[in-house]
Each structure stands twice: as structure tokens, then as C-alpha cells.
């Protein structure tokens, strides 16, 4: 119990004593994580946008005039059982006529004299997200064409191909930009925490000389790293929330240019958890890695003393 109390007191003492450095480090962590979080926010909203576009990718199967109401129910049930189909909706001849009229608007008079059953009934088929590509749509079209209930199957082929390209590009971009940003984040945060920790080298040396074990030396600084990372990650989430609110409220009227801005979503639970975890893990691990080098070898400390004029030269070897 006394060891735990000692560790907690040392951590609290360390935070109070180097409060300025602590805040500065947490601020840098917040900014860097904020950029990474901004990328997550962008990616999340692009995915939502794509999902919306994907819902519009539908196959239209035009029904043969011979299909009765009873046949139609059986047909709809059969289509729903296909693994690649998410939902189906039936458009009757009457509904198709009304939709066409609405689409024509003021020119609706052009339809005068035409019989109301001139347009065929149809079934709109929406595929599950994982089947929204050109190959899957082509395959389903071929299967449906073999059925005598349909006279024609249509789908917007060019649209589907473009959509597939956008989805693939986003997936690559996610890993590429995300990876680069994460590496930058890792290096900035670890360097920043290391610099803060190296300022404590005298304390660590004294602790060693009075017989503190490695755990007793590392634990308070790991706790400080944890708090620093948590605060930095919290700060990043707050910054992102501010940006999100600003875009959502849109005081500059940007949504007129980019309509999707008015529907922007904030980070989801897993993304928030990811940012908090990265902050905490980086804060702790950067402290521990910087310290382990110092605790295990005082050569680092000696080098620091010898070349203190060159502040970067006392970073641990290989850092």
C-alpha cells in the first residue's frame, strides 16, 4: 500500500512541478491527434456519403404484363431471399405513370392522349453494400434475365463503375494517409514526451542512488504519460467537436457550395475510443521507452551532461 501511495504521490508531484511542460506536451499531443482525428472524421463522413450514393445504385427489373398479383408476391419473396439483395420495392404501372408525370412537372401536358398503362410495372432492387460493384450487378442481371417474369433489366453501369473506383480509392487513401499521419503522430508525440522525461533525469538518478527499483522509478512517470496522453486525446476530441459544430452550424454558408456539410456526422464510438487509446498508449509508451534507456544505462545521462550545449545530442541512442 505504501508503495502505491508513494507512486501516486510522485506522479502528482511530478505533474505539479513540471506543469508548464506537461501542458505544452499535452497541447502538442492534442494538435497532432487532432490532425489524425480530422482525417478519421473526413473518412467517416466520406463513407456515409458513399453509403448514400450506394443506396441509389439499383437494378430495375421491368415486369412482364402477364405477371399476376399472386405471382408478384411470390416473385418479391423469391428476390428477397437472394443473398446479394438488400431490399426490393414494387412500382406499379399506375405509380410509374404518376412518377413520370411528377418528373415532367409543367410539361405534363405532353402525356395527354396516352393511355395510363403505357409504362411497365417494375421492381427496384437494392443490393447489399458488399455487392455494389459492376461484376456483381452484371451477374445478377444475367440471372434475372433468364426468368420469364421480366422483360428487361437495367442498371446504371457507368455510375456503378465510377462508384467502385471511388470506393477503392478511398480504401487506399484510408491506409496510405492514415498510415503516414499515424507515423508522424507517433514520432512527434514520442519525441515530445521524451524531451519532457529527459528533463527529469536528475530525479531519476537520485532515485536510483537511494535504491529505488526500476518499477518504482518508471511507475510514476508512466502514470504521468498516461494522464498526458489522455488529456491530449481529450483535447483533440474537443478541437474536432468544435470544428464539427462550426461546420454543422455553417455560419459562412458553405453548405450552399458543399451540400454534404449540413449532414456532417461527428466521430463514432470506435473512432473516439481509437483516439483516446492512441493518446494514452503513446503517452505511456513514450515515457517508458525514454526512461528504460535512462534507467538501464547511465551512459545516456553522462552523454547528456557532456554535450548539454547540443540539446538534441542527449536523446537516447537510436531514438
Amino acid at each position, binding site marked *: 500500500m*505504501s508503495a502505491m501511495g*508513494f507512486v501516486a*504521490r510522485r506522479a502528482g508531484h511530478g505533474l505539479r512541478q513540471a506543469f508548464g511542460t506537461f501542458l505544452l506536451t499535452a497541447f502538442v499531443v492534442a494538435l497532432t491527434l487532432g490532425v489524425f482525428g480530422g482525417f478519421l472524421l473526413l473518412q467517416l463522413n466520406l463513407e456515409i456519403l458513399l453509403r448514400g450514393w450506394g443506396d441509389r445504385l439499383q437494378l430495375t427489373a421491368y415486369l412482364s404484363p402477364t405477371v399476376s398479383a399472386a405471382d408478384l408476391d411470390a416473385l418479391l419473396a423469391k428476390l428477397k431471399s437472394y443473398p446479394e439483395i438488400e431490399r426490393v420495392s414494387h412500382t406499379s404501372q399506375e405509380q410509374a405513370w404518376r412518377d413520370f408525370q411528377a418528373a415532367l412537372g409543367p410539361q405534363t401536358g405532353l402525356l395527354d392522349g396516352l393511355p395510363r398503362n403505357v409504362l411497365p410495372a417494375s421492381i427496384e432492387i437494392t443490393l447489399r453494400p458488399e455487392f455494389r460493384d459492376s461484376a456483381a450487378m452484371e451477374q445478377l442481371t444475367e440471372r434475372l434475365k433468364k426468368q420469364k417474369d421480366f422483360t428487361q433489366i437495367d442498371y446504371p453501369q457507368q455510375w456503378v463503375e465510377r462508384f467502385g473506383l471511388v470506393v477503392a480509392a478511398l480504401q487506399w487513401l484510408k491506409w496510405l494517409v492514415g498510415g503516414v499521419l499515424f507515423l508522424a503522430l507517433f514520432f512527434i508525440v514520442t519525441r515530445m514526451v521524451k524531451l519532457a522525461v529527459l528533463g527529469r533525469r*536528475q530525479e531519476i*538518478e*537520485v532515485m536510483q542512488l*537511494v*535504491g529505488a*527499483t*526500476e518499477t518504482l522509478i518508471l511507475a510514476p512517470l508512466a502514470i504521468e504519460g498516461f494522464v498526458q496522453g489522455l488529456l491530449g486525446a481529450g483535447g483533440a476530441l474537443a478541437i474536432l467537436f468544435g470544428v464539427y459544430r462550426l461546420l454543422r452550424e455553417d455560419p459562412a454558408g458553405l453548405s450552399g457550395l458543399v451540400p454534404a456539410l449540413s449532414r456532417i456526422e461527428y466521430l463514432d464510438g470506435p473512432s473516439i475510443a481509437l483516439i483516446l487509446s492512441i493518446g494514452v498508449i503513446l503517452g505511456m509508451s513514450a515515457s517508458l521507452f525514454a526512461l528504460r534507456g535512462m534507467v538501464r544505462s547511465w551512459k545516456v545521462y553522462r552523454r547528456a551532461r557532456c554535450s548539454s550545449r547540443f540539446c538534441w545530442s542527449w536523446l537516447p541512442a537510436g531514438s
Partner: protein
Amino acid sequence: MIQFQHVVKRYTPAVCALDDVNLEIHKGELVLLSGANGAGKSTLLKLIYREEEPSSGNVLVEGQNLKSIDGRAVARLRRRVGLVFQEFKLLANLSAWENIALAAEVAGAPRNSARDRALRLLRDLGLESRRNAKPSSLSSGEQQRVAIARALVNRPKLILADEPTGNLDDAAACDTLRLFKDIRQQDTTIVVASHAVDLFNEIATRVVQLEHGRIVADSGGGGAAGWQL
């Protein structure tokens, strides 16, 4: 209590700090290590509290060979040894009593007990009124007394002091000397590395002179009286 058996310490192939040192220090002795800069005095002390490892040979403290011990055992060893340095090595952001209590807490003493022990030592050393002062507001002599109090707080059987009077004026050096004298009377073994041979000659029971990493003179257990450079 301490044995050096054919100890060699090389920092680089060309720099030999200690060369085939054989030495036995007995319980209750106050041994003065003397010699010029670079003679190997500080290295010898560092080998005892295991800041350095010998390149060859063995260093034994209370029968324990320090060559094969791990980090935890090094920590345990240091809790049993009091260390005093020329540059005091006090933590600037802790008060006098907190610096002393830190060593007690590291050794496992509860906070209150560590505080009581620290305050008692400060009273014994005449620093009670300075208990809350930070090292920067203490004189060199006061800082060294605090450092000695920290070395004593775990009631060690062995005290190692590396140039303990190096940064002190004559009056403070005499105070420090008096403290070591008092400590020795409690049957504590003390090993001091110092240039101030004349000063420590008064109280040392034995003087060991080093030169280029070798022991060139040892007054033995017969005390320092009559021993000359």
C-alpha cells in the same frame, strides 16, 4: 565487510581506472581513499554501490558478490548503503525533509514514519528550522548535512562518501568531519574518497592511497597515525 579480489576496471581498452586491486575493508573502519585525480578513488566507490561493474575480478559486500546481481538486488544493496557526494545530489523541487524522507520511502517506510525519521535527523544535525527549505535556499554546508541525513535515514551499516568536503568551506568541512566522526562511533563502516587527506587523517582509521588505479600504500588496520604521503 567489503572485499576487492583482483579487481580490474577498464572504461575503454586504453583507459584502466583500477588495475588488479585487492582490498579488504572491515566492519567499523573509516577508510580514507586518497590519491590524485584519476587515481581510481571514485571508481572504487562506484564498484561498491554497483554503479559500475568490474571488467574482471570480484567485489563482495557482506559476502555478496556484486558481479552477478540483477537490478532489484542492486536496488536492495543501495538501500543498505548511504551515499554522500560532492555535488550533494539533492532534488531541487523537494524540501530538506522531503529529500531525506524520499530515501526512507523508497526503502519501504510509510510516509509518516519517513517524515518522522527525516525530521528527527534534521533536529540531530541542527537543521530543524530549515526543514521546509528547498536546496537552493540552503548553504553548501547545510545541503551537505541534508545529504548526509539522507544517507543515514535507513540506518545503513555502510556509508560511502565521494569528496564530501569538495564543495565546502573550511567551517562546513569541519562540521562534516564531525558528523562522520559521530557516525563512526555508531559502529558504521565509512569509506571516504577525498583529496583532503589532512582533514580526514584526524578521524580515519585507515588510509589507502591509489595511483594510476593501483593501491600504492595502505596504512592497514593500525589507523592513520604516522601515515604519510
